[in-house]
């Protein structure tokens, strides 16, 4: 192994170690942070409610595309009655959790990273430390918990709106039977399929919130440093989402 790549591996390991230690401290800080529900609710609002428009719009169009593509595909086999099931399975198991996570990383993750990074750059975190207030407990933990709670909720909304979009195109425009669309879906979807989506969204919520908070907390305290940290949040979140999606899908099969 060349010297350069060995340095690279060591650096990657060091970063992984720093993140793991940070995660441990973050979890420890979550317990006392629960005593301040007001702070967590504010962060659920920030990460969740403020992402609603983009999530709903994306969900609607994703569902509409599913309706269109699904109809086109299924009618070749004369199986358009399965459109409801196909759309629901795609949304519940894959598109819902993954697309919501990717949108969350772009909308809420970057906001978290830049907010915490700027707090670091303007000495706000240091000021808390010096005031004997633990910024892990006051800043990092509520944001982590807020993201962890918000992402599964956003995923649920994405899926519901997506199903409506699929129905809009499939039933209203393409003429699939309304009753068949919903009843086939109802009979074919098992609890396991729903669980898969829920587990994925919770895991994504934890990992993406951790990445965003960690990057912000360890950003270089400069304009450039905060910018770089924000970029890293999007890149790391996207890659981790797709990687974990494969792992979790394999685990559920």
């Amino acid at each position: 192994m060349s010297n350069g790549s060995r340095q690279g591996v060591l650096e990657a390991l060091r970063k992984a170690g720093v993140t793991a230690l940070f995660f441990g401290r973050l979890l420890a800080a979550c317990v006392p942070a629960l005593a301040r529900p007001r702070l967590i609710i504010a962060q659920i609002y920030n990460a969740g409610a403020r992402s609603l428009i983009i999530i709903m719009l994306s969900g609607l169009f994703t569902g509409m595309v599913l309706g269109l593509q699904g109809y086109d595909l299924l009618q070749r086999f004369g199986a358009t009655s399965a459109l409801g099931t196909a759309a629901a399975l795609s949304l519940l198991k894959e598109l819902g959790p993954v697309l919501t996570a990717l949108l969350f990383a772009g909308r809420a993750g970057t906001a978290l990273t830049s907010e915490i990074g700027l707090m670091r750059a303007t000495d706000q975190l240091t000021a808390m430390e010096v005031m004997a207030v633990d910024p892990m407990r006051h800043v990092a933990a509520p944001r982590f918990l807020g993201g962890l709670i918000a992402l599964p909720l956003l995923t649920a909304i994405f899926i519901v709106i997506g199903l409506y979009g699929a129905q809009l195109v499939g039933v209203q425009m393409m003429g699939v039977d309304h009753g068949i669309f919903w009843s086939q879906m109802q009979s074919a979807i098992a609890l396991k399929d729903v669980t898969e989506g829920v587990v994925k969204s919770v895991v994504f919520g934890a990992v993406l919130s951790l990445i965003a908070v960690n990057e912000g907390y360890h950003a270089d305290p400069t304009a450039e440093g905060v910018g770089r940290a924000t970029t890293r949040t999007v890149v790391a979140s996207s890659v981790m989402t797709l990687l974990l999606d494969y792992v979790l899908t394999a685990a559920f099969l």
Partner: protein
Amino acid sequence: MDDSQPTSHPAPETDAVIDVRDVHYAIDGRPIFAGLDVRVRRGLITAVMGPSGTGKTTLLRLITGQIYADRGQVSVFGREVADMGRAELFATRRRMGMLFQNGALLTDLTVFENVAFPVRERTNLPEPLIRNLVLTKLEAVGLRGAAQLMPAELSGGMARRVALARAIVMDPEMLIYDEPFVGLDPISLGVILRLIKQMNDALGITSVVVSHDVHEIATIADHSYLISEGRVVASGSPAQLAESDSATVHQFMTGSAEGPVRFHYPAADYATELLGVEKG
């Protein structure tokens, strides 16, 4: 001081709130301090001065336990900072207030909530009491009327006064000021200067002022340290420093570009570099 009872005569160090002894500290192998000695005595205003980049802010970070010395001792309120656990460190920090260079106000809270922040975090006082406490401190810095403004709506001088109100809201024994005069207009500067003096006179708060504004700080400091190249090059009352015959002190006090503290960053010969040629 009454000297009639020799047995109770305190050793010179016993009234030291901060005692920094022979501290060595390096960042990435570059030495910041090499044998620094600073003592801050109770109830006095102590100024720490020095050219930019001499590690004045680093000294404050050592005192507040954000970083630890590579060698030497830093003790605060008679206890070694490096020996403190997290709980004791936080307990010690509760006894001090710090004013940051840019105020470091929490940008998502109003002026009122910023000042109330340490009180809410550390006590369970009832709301009316918190309100009175905060308004009293804001009145002291002349900003009671700005209580509902957001930090983004404040000028630099106002933000620093709010930060000062926040620093004193828990009635600390010691206040640390990091470059309190930087970027202030003459009026704000005079106000901050008077406030520092008032805090010290009226409340008996020990004050540490880190600054390079020699003339401003000389008007209120009881004792000054001049730091250069990692160690104290001069100390004493402002008058003593003014009379010092040390070249470094003289250069710093008069603001001259010529002297032991180099104005020019090390570089190749000027003429050679401009002409771009050395041989032919």
